[in-house]
């Protein structure tokens, strides 16, 4: 690392020392905590053989759990889109009493332990709970121990990701674009649709991805409210626990690996979509 190399490469950046140390720390940290353990997950299922892994994944109960976990997580992320936009919009654009409190409150699911959230949601939405009771009486709806209970728990964990992804973009979005649109005679609705929404799109996708990723794997807050019925309200992470209890390590790892791959593919697709959008705007 001498001045000559820096000169030869024509870049002053090489002069900054510390790459070796920081990259070394990073890679050992990443390797020990994440990569080696995940390698075990990738290797373990194949002790069943390809046919065995396929049999585990094609099982009706496993398929039902995947449909629920991924379906409910996608739905939760979709519902979080308008909800997150609403919260982010109100917090950044309006001044009203309690705004600061609301701003702090939306982070609650980040800070609340998932098991505590699960207990709280069950207490709220059970037939004798504050919200579950009136809903059951007025409409005959049952929420706890049904797939919709799973959905509510997942919205609770996914929503803050959406709000916190959109909010900084909304804050940085200058009013100039909107003003320009107005000068050109656009109505408010047109301005929002043509100017504001496209600017927010990449952030919405990020929030969608983060919320979805978190919701798919969520365990603590769901198992209390789900009822855990095989084929109907049993989530995929619970299935892993159940398989472990039946001394089926490889089966558990197969379900875990499939979850990981599926989640990764969906997140990758979102990433590609986001990059396209960004490029389209630039």
């Amino acid at each position: 690392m001498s001045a000559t190399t820096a000169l030869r490469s024509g870049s002053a950046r090489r002069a900054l020392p510390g790459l070796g140390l920081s990259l070394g720390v990073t890679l050992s940290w990443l390797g020990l905590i994440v990569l080696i353990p995940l390698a075990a997950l990738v290797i373990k299922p194949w002790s069943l053989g390809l046919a065995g892994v396929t049999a585990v994944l094609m099982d009706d109960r496993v398929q039902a759990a995947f449909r629920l976990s991924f379906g409910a997580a996608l739905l939760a992320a979709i519902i979080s889109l308008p909800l997150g936009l609403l919260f982010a919009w109100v917090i950044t654009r309006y001044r009203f009493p309690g705004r600061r409190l609301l701003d702090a409150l939306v982070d609650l699911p980040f800070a609340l332990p998932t098991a505590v959230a699960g207990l709280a949601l069950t207490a709220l939405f059970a037939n004798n709970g504050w919200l579950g009771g009136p809903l059951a009486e007025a409409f005959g709806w049952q929420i706890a121990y049904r797939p919709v209970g799973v959905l509510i728990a997942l919205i609770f964990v996914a929503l803050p990701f959406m709000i916190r992804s959109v909010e900084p973009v909304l804050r940085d979005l200058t009013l100039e674009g909107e003003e320009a649109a107005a000068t050109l005679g656009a109505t408010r609705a047109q301005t929002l649709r043509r100017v504001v929404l496209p600017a927010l799109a990449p952030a919405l996708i990020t929030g969608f991805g983060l919320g979805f990723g978190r919701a798919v794997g969520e365990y603590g807050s769901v198992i209390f409210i789900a009822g855990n019925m095989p084929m109907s309200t049993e989530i995929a992470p619970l299935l892993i626990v159940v398989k472990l209890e039946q001394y089926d390590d490889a089966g558990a790892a197969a379900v875990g690996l499939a979850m990981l791959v599926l989640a990764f593919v969906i997140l990758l697709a979102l990433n590609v979509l986001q990059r396209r959008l960004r490029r389209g705007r630039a």
Partner: protein
Amino acid sequence: MSVATEDPPWARRLLVTLAILLGIAIFLAPLAAIFTEALRRGLAPALEAIAEPDALAAMRLTLLVAAIAVPVNAIGGVAASWAIAKFDFAGKRLLVTLIELPFAVSPVISGLVYVLIFGAQGWFGGWLREHDIQIIFALPGLVLATTFVTFPFVARTLLPLMQEQGREEEEAAATLGAGGLQTFFRVTLPNVKWALLGGILLCNARAMGEFGAVAVVSGHIRGATNTMPLHVEILYNEYMFVGAFAVASLLALLGLVTLGAKALLEYWTARPMGVEA
């Protein structure tokens, strides 16, 4: 111009009302439910449940686990952000993706992988037994699972800020003859200290509240390997609902303190912190 940049008053009022109502239903109601259930029979039984020896042991364990997992992730997160933001090298995108990977992994899987490796039937099971080392169902397993789950928090908070700040100041320091560590402690760290603190807060909140991953590796031994969230579940399963919600309240309070501290940090630095894009 006001037509297109300002929402009509009725829309304003409608949106604010809607947000407040939803905020109460989604965020405030669960919080209120925890505290109400805890105080159902008054303050004394709730305090008793918190002061019970098993609960205290769970608290000590939770704090100890966080006290190891959070610094590990803070050091790793700082090193990773520094390397990624200040240098060019091949495979950077991949590195960022890998660091974020634990976000997409179910907590249950994070517990499972350590069982596959360190369990008696796992890769190192036989070796560990020969040498009388207990990893899972003991402190090291709890720490590993917690570290995995909270892995990306610090890096994710620091990285956007460090990328935005660029390299000029560090390069200037290097040109003036400062070493790597010196540059880091004198130039970079002061620039990112609040964001670092924010990331540590979030990391810590998640570390103390983690349930799924530690449930798999804990063994649930009362007074020994039960963390606070697991203790909540145990009390709940023993029909001690007041106790369960009392300990849950304590955890919720810790969460609220975290939020308060984070809000203060953001107020001082006028910069939102969190797992942003």
